[in-house]
């Protein structure tokens, strides 16, 4: 079974020196959920449409009110690239790494751009089932990454 919101699996895959994302008023709720290792998506309070990244207004009905819907933490790879060059010196020991657009289950087609970790980059493919894992970058920031579903003793679907 997968824990709602992705549960507590965590690890470190990227260096501390990475340029870190920072919350603003619009994204604070999303990052707060991440800090408690809960994968969420913004949902319109009026029509229920989901959107990502978080934005001020529902593009479907123009409602300004929204809420954070908890996702199961599973999903599939929509597309990806394997980054082979260290664009920043701090990533020299991290390449090659995978940047992927993931379609989380239950997110209504919204996509999250993240990384697929804990696998050989060559094994990543379009349609690969994945699940969220958490990278605690510090006391105030946890970043969701994804790993192939079925690895590390997980009893979910196999890749």
């Amino acid at each position, binding site marked *: 079974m997968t824990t709602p919101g992705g549960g507590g699996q965590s690890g470190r895959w990227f260096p501390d020196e990475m340029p870190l*994302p920072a919350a603003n008023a619009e994204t604070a709720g999303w990052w707060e959920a991440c800090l408690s290792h809960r994968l969420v998506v913004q949902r319109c309070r009026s029509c229920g449409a989901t959107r990502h990244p978080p934005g001020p207004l529902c593009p479907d009905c123009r409602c300004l009110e929204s809420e954070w819907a908890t996702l199961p933490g599973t999903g599939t790879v929509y*597309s990806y*690239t394997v980054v082979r060059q260290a664009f920043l010196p701090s990533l020299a020991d991290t390449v090659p790494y995978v*940047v992927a657009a993931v379609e989380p289950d239950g997110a209504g087609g919204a*996509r999250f751009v993240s990384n697929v970790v804990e696998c050989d980059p060559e094994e990543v493919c379009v349609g690969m089932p994945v699940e969220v894992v958490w990278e605690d970058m510090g006391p105030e920031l946890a970043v969701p990454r994804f790993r192939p579903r079925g690895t590390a003793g997980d009893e979910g679907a196999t890749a």
Partner: protein
Amino acid sequence: MSWNKVAVVGAGLIKMGELFDQSYEQMAAGAYSAALAGVDRGAPEIDAAIVATQRGSLWGQEGIGGNTVPSAIGLSGIPCTRVENACPSGSDAFRIGAMVVASGVHDVVLVIGVEKMRDKSTQEGLLARAAAGHPLYNRGETAPVLFAPFATRHMHEFGTTPEMLASVAVKNHHNGCLDPYAHFQSEVTIEQVLASPLVCSPLRLLDCCPQTDGAAAVILTSADRAGEFTDRPVYVAGFGVATDHPYLHEKSTYVGLPATTLASSRAYEMAGIGPADVDMAEVHDCFTITEILDIEDLGFVEKGKGGPASLEGETALDGRIPVNPSGGLLAKGHPIGATGLAQITECFWQLREEAGERQVAVRNGIALQHNVGGRGSGVSVVNILTRNR
């Protein structure tokens, strides 16, 4: 033709490259002189100017305003506005210049693009960009990371191959050999492209355009006054601009850039033509995959067929629809604010059949120029030119 109120009467550019020995202002002066030299007769008195520079402060030129370029090129005092609209900055400056002339407010308008890309190292530029991303996720985003997932998805859905991507680089580098203004002037083979280092799979080094310094300029006037300066003006037949979401997360598709489809449909409608009427096109090939997306989104080939069309030579100089005869961004270079105006200059020369060894067959007298870019390729501009009054 439904518009044709505005004419290009002069156009020119400087040799693209790593221009450490030229200042921003010298590059502007070089492009302005080249455009003036391209006017067949008379000396157009510039009433107003539009300047396109995209990077500006991020790349070390602090505070470029409307006055920087006029001051440098002897036009201080004229009305001048700087346009920054991502990779299509030059194309959009051209569109705005055309609207200024069409409005009747100014008669003779200089549209000039100048960009210094190399004064700061690639790494410094990336570090500057790394801090500028969306607060959610895009810190450290780079252009190849943005386009590579489109290539991956295009391959997945349509069977596009690395050889098909490479064929775009081979063609554009070949064309660049015939363009004295191109940054790179050497042939590459499919094998060489496929043996070049992977940057972000499936994109390799030779799938990527270089970082290039450059400047280009165009002189516009009303169609009624064009005869004062030339017997062979090129008219603005139509244009279109469209926007899309800025982030990879929210793209509706990874096998096309809908902003280009929208922008081109607006331009075609304004010009009263369709893609089959276009004789040649200068399009945004920042990566090989981008040209494949472009030729599909512009309607030159069916969606999904851009790869085979490129490999089979449909977009070559002697192909069904020659694309990027100048060498494109891949070989000529991509000095952002200047890119669109350098493309317009190529269209101007091609329609006047002055393009020398790289001249394409002009059947209908119609050329198309296109840029797409900005965060998530969220801005696209298409300009259509014609030699038919």
